[in-house]
């Protein structure tokens, strides 16, 4: 594919807006349609547009896979934390009467979103690298 200046400039303008939209979808997952998985996919498309800006860009795959592994372990720990407070696994660790219950949803959505985004970015980067060789 030949590099096009128009495509590169449009992607440069769109990149921050797609990032903001992805984080909005992730953070507002408990109020409006969306959530961690969908917002993570939008973040991954934002990083896909960076390939149109700079054609020699190579993402560091080791770093992405490391982020994904660590965030998956953090999600497991947050989900298991209710064993201490409530005595049962895989529910919210806050009590049913408290007003701060959305905090649990926001943190889990955030971690799931970053994890899904790094996974999809590494898949895209692998495919683009394979297509180039």
């Amino acid at each position: 594919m030949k590099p096009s200046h128009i495509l590169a400039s449009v992607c440069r303008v769109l990149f921050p807006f797609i990032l903001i939209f992805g984080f909005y979808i992730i953070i507002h997952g408990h109020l409006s349609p969306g959530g961690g998985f969908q917002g993570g996919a939008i973040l991954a498309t934002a990083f896909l547009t960076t390939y149109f800006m700079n054609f020699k860009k190579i993402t560091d795959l080791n770093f992405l896979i490391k982020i994904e592994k660590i965030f998956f372990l953090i999600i497991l720990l947050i989900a298991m934390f209710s064993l201490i407070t409530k005595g049962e696994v895989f529910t919210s660790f806050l009590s049913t009467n408290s007003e701060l219950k959305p905090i649990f949803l926001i943190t889990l959505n955030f971690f799931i979103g970053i994890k899904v985004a790094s996974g999809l970015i590494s898949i895209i980067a692998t495919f683009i690298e394979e297509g180039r060789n």
Partner: protein
Amino acid sequence: MIKKILSILMLISLLIVFSLASFEALENSNSFSKDFYIENTYKHTGSKNLVTGIYLDYRLFDSIFEASILLVSVTGIIFMSKRDDEVL
């Protein structure tokens, strides 16, 4: 020719069976769980979006394995695409 006729017959029979089954499901539907979630999700989980309330609180066990499926597929794709001396 015979293959095309057979495949069209198969598609038509699939359509008939699926529409019959969906009409049957409409008549005999039970709205107990729907009413339960609509009434109690905001009280139990504090989420105004029912889907988030279900997949992050009632069914958190499922969504953790849903997240692990992505991890496993990413590692599989990277393992298959790299050559033997480049595996991470």
